[in-house]
């Protein structure tokens, strides 16, 4: 089935002219295609962008580190109710000590006030004040366990933790707002109502999604000091008091599986769980996070496929309708073209190209709208996006295919018209 170049060019221009002549009708027809392609391209850019930066962040955690928490995103994603989660027993610094005694665990770090928490405090230095920051009480291992680089000075030591020293390591945000020009090491800052000595500054921290989620708005003090100054903060939530304690455990070399098992057993014993009872704490590891994330993105992609398929189907049916109308309206033209020498496949291609041009126009619009949406979201919120070329190709390919597939029936009908009857039409 050979089609002449001259004819193809002629067909393409004719197709565009037909679309121009029926602007309103064409626009309505391609709405479905535009929506479908916009969804594909836009959602791909967001999901893929978020995916990349999320993986980057999770990888920083290290493949072996085990986090123990009262609850976490994992329990939400597995569908547990907030009200049940908040009723779980609170973790304590003593839990961390118990885990540290395990054979398979190299060291642990306790983090107070790290996560789900509204007790934020201001730091001040010589009348300069920061916004409300997250104050965390940790062990000397916090930076090491979290792979957080120390940009200036040092982190506090085990001895400083033991002696409840009033020392603070600043995150990027308080560092830059209090000491934009001078060396902060050795300077005094006030945390809430108490004086601390600055001994170090942490480098920028990665965050899920790479946009500013306040991950640098922190200051870290020894957890012993934290307990003295703030107590382990109890947050009154419906369901009971909630204390924010996260334990980070780093297993010994090659003992990750055993460590996981032993940590789980120890925590179950400490919480007095019977064999048939579920864990009332979360164990968070890099691969558990990645697995959950993968599941989530799969669901997102699946729903994306469903949504855009429906939109494209609606668009396709619209195309079929408009092309059927077009064939009927132009029966006489088809007869004329046949009389002048058009072969069947030439008529067939004319209508197929016309349908594909129509839907491809919708596809181009969808690609522009979709990537535009992505870029806009990125500019407004800093949300990371990714615009892979294949999502454009996919969008254009899909839209053209919709035209070819749904234009097929009307095009075949046109190509089979009897020239005499077609000419006599009207």
């Amino acid at each position, binding site marked *: 089935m050979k089609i002449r170049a001259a004819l193809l060019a002629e067909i393409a221009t004719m197709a565009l002219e037909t679309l121009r002549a029926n602007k309103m009708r064409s626009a309505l027809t391609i709405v479905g295609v535009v929506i479908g392609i916009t969804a594909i391209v836009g959602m791909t850019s967001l999901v893929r962008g978020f995916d990349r930066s999320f993986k980057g962040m999770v990888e920083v955690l290290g493949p072996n580190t085990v986090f123990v928490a009262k609850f976490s995103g994992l329990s939400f994603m597995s569908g547990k109710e907030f009200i049940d989660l908040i009723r779980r027993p609170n973790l304590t610094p003593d839990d961390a000590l118990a885990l540290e005694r395990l054979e398979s665990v190299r060291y642990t770090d306790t983090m107070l006030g790290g996560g789900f928490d509204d007790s934020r405090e201001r730091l001040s230095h010589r009348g300069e004040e920061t916004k409300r920051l997250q104050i965390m009480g940790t062990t000397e291992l916090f930076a090491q366990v979290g792979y957080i680089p120390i940009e200036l000075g040092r982190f506090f030591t085990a001895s400083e933790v033991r002696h409840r020293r009033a020392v603070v390591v600043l995150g990027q945000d308080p560092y830059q707002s209090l000491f934009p020009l001078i060396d902060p090491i050795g300077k005094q800052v006030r945390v809430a109502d108490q004086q601390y000595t600055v001994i170090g500054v942490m480098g920028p921290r990665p965050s899920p999604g790479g946009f500013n989620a306040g991950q640098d708005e922190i200051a870290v003090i020894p957890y012993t000091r934290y307990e003295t100054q703030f107590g382990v903060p109890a947050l009154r939530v419906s369901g009971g008091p909630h204390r924010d304690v996260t334990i980070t455990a780093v297993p010994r070399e090659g003992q990750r599986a055993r460590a996981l098992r032993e940590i789980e057993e120890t925590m179950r014993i400490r919480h007095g769980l019977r064999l048939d009872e579920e864990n009332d704490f979360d164990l968070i590891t890099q691969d558990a996070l990645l697995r959950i994330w993968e599941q989530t993105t799969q669901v997102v992609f699946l729903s994306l496929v469903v949504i855009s398929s429906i939109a494209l189907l609606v668009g396709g049916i619209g195309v079929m309708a408009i092309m059927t109308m077009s064939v009927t309206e132009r029966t006489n033209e088809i007869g004329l073209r*046949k*009389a*002048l020498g058009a072969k069947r496949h030439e008529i067939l291609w004319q209508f197929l190209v016309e349908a594909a041009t129509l839907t491809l126009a919708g596809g181009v619009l969808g690609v522009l709208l979709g990537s535009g949406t992505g870029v806009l979201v990125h500019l407004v919120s800093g949300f990371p996006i990714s615009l892979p070329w294949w999502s454009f190709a996919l969008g254009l390919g899909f839209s053209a295919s919709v035209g070819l597939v749904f234009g097929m029936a009307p095009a075949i009908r046109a190509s089979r018209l009897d020239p005499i009857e077609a000419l006599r039409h009207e």
Partner: protein
Amino acid sequence: MSLIEVEQLKKSYDMGSEEVHALRGVDLRVEAGEYIAIMGPSGSGKSTFLNLLGCLDTPTSGRYILNDRDVSTMAEDDLAQVRNEEIGFVFQTFNLLARATALQNVELPLVYAGVGADERRARAQTALEKVDLSDRVTHRPNELSGGQRQRVAIARALVNDPSILLADEPTGNLDSVTGAELLGLLDSLHKKGHTLFVVTHERDVAKHAQSIVHLRDGQIETIEQV
């Protein structure tokens, strides 16, 4: 060999209960350069005969040799090619593409002949000059008078340099003055050597031809020399 040889050409339509015999065996020989009018009462088979001559349709039986080729048994796409190369149609209702300019309308047969854009344009231009419309190439049909539209249609019929030119009631939609102009144009084409068939029910139109084929009830009644 004659340009056209028609032997015992028959066309019947199966209408379920009965069979309609539109042509009941027509014999005709036409030499290149002849000008022939076809007359007859309504329903006598004029259009059917013209459609067969124009290879728009195939006969139920009989033979039609055009330019040494038997076109009576050809398949649809082969007939399309014969129409493209050998036949020029002029329709009563002009049948121009409304969205296309005069030039584009005239180019259309060349598109299906696979002629390149430049040559197509040049040849369409020449064809429009032949019908005295070189100053109307960029006009669309709705910007042209009836007579001008019919001349565009004739230019389109000529552009492929066909063996025969077929016109079904070409003056039917024209007033008498433009109708007369059109007949003058057909006369001049005949003088230049084109072979013409014109279906008409007007004797004044038919008198422009060299011979008039009178059809009645699907058969040739007489062939009248003018």
